[in-house]
């Protein structure tokens, strides 16, 4: 009897063992969990409670590639890109479109309504009817023009290739170079690892230049004297992320800075003293990997964001209280 029980027990044990082996061989799934997972989704989502703007409108462009965005005093919107310039009225209705010979990387409009286009290594000046007025070839063959700002008779050109800002008069004569490293005057020199190098003129008549490798804004007089700087490198919302940011900026009417970044695609507003104010757009509103979110502010103080991946101008406004 005892022997019988032992045999049955041994058989049951054997069956259980075989069942385990069969399960292990044929039904078990490999463990594909990643113990070293680096979760980036939370970084891309960000804190939505800081968002103070909503997207109210999208303007579709017919250009094949878009790189530059500007507005004029009347609130008209200008887009420049591959082989053309497109002009919209403030409501987003297409007004004019004309061809240019090449790809414009940036665009700005002066008080006379003339368009300054940065074409890789030279500058072209056009009127809004599509007539070319002049061409400046004085930046040099190594130039990579990424931004232009105009005030009165002064034209400032950001050159990411030679890591310098050129000051010209309206006739195209080069007056000076701004931002070359000079320890004697405290100018740190521009660090530009990728071709995103923006500048702008504030209401108080100072030249603000992004130093992307240092994650900072630098304030210069038109003569090239460094006055101040602000900026903090950080992945957090308050700082500028990645190797080199912000990629673009613009001024709101109350001298606030609107900035855009690559790597973590986000648009934010900073106070004039450089302290963080609020978020305009979070990374989940853009395609991952979007670069070159050029910015402009129109007559109604709306923030316009150029989305080169979706080929859109996206309009952001603060909800009316």
């Amino acid at each position, binding site marked *: 009897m005892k022997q019988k029980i032992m045999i049955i027990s041994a058989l049951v044990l054997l069956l259980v063992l075989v069942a385990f082996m069969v399960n292990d061989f044929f039904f078990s799934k490999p463990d*594909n969990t990643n113990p070293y997972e*680096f979760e980036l989704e939370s970084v891309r989502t960000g804190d939505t409670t800081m968002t103070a703007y909503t997207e109210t409108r999208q303007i579709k462009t017919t250009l094949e590639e878009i790189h530059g965005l500007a507005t004029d005093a009347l609130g008209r919107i200008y887009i420049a890109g591959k082989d053309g310039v497109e002009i919209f009225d403030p409501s987003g209705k297409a007004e004019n479109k004309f061809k240019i010979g090449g790809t414009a990387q940036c665009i700005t409009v002066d008080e006379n309504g003339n368009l300054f286009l940065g074409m890789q290594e030279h500058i072209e000046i056009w009127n809004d009817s599509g007539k070319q007025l002049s061409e400046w070839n004085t930046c040099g063959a190594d130039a990579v023009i990424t931004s232009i700002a105009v005030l009165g008779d002064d034209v400032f050109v950001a050159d990411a290739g030679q890591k310098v800002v050129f000051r010209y008069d309206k006739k195209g004569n080069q007056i000076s170079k701004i931002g070359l490293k000079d320890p004697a005057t405290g100018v740190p020199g521009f660090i530009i*690892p990728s071709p995103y190098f923006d500048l702008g003129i504030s209401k108080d008549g100072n030249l603000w230049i992004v130093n992307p*490798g240092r994650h900072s804004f630098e304030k210069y007089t038109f003569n090239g004297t460094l006055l101040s700087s602000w900026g903090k490198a950080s992945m957090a919302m308050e700082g500028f992320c990645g190797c080199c940011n912000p990629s673009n900026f613009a001024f709101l009417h109350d001298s606030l800075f609107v900035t855009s970044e690559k790597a973590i695609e986000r648009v934010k507003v900073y106070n004039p003293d450089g302290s963080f104010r609020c978020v305009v757009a979070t990374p989940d509103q853009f395609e991952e990997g979007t670069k070159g979110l050029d910015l402009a502010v129109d007559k109604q103080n709306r923030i316009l964001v150029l989305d080169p991946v979706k080929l859109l101008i996206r309009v952001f406004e603060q909800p009316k209280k």
Partner: protein
Amino acid sequence: MQNRRDFLNKLCRGTILTGLAATTGILVFRSAKSGHCEIGSSCGNCLKSDSCTLTAAVLFRQTVWQLDPTKCIQCGRCAKNCVMTPSAVKVVHVYAMCGYCDLCGGYLKPDTKTISTAAENQLCPTSALKRKFVEDPFYQYTIDEALCIGCAKCVKGCDAFGNGSLQLQVRHDRCKNCNECSIARDCPSDAYSRVPANKPYLLQGIESSSDKNNT
């Protein structure tokens, strides 16, 4: 008798001489005809020919495992699935692409409060990525291969926030070159393939990976 022996002697010598002349002629003709042997051989065989036993040709025919960084999705399986411990897959730094950034997405955790070498700020679980100050504001990043486990966390960080200069590669001083690579078998993006042993690296972003191939 003498004449017959002379005759046979001359016949043998003549045959050998003719044979030698014919062989030389054939070799010269084939060499002139092919004219593009990649390893300087005058035999006319191309490198892929199984009959060629020159070292360069043998190396050309041999293949090793390598992963294509453009296909890699940083899933972490290179660290887990390799038969070697730690894995034979390591991070390789393509310095030509590196921005030498202070805020390095491959070195620092995204939620880092301060930029420093403190262990709690480092993304690498084994501190295999080393940071060294070069000049303001540049830092050089090097990999301690003995510590690297091939988890690709830094690769993902560098891809997301930087230039993508950190890339995973099978290091052939460690790889056992198994017939069936256990990582390749489970690679979800089919990034693994066999490549010629004389060009064993597939680094991206540089004109040629000859520097790496020579190491």
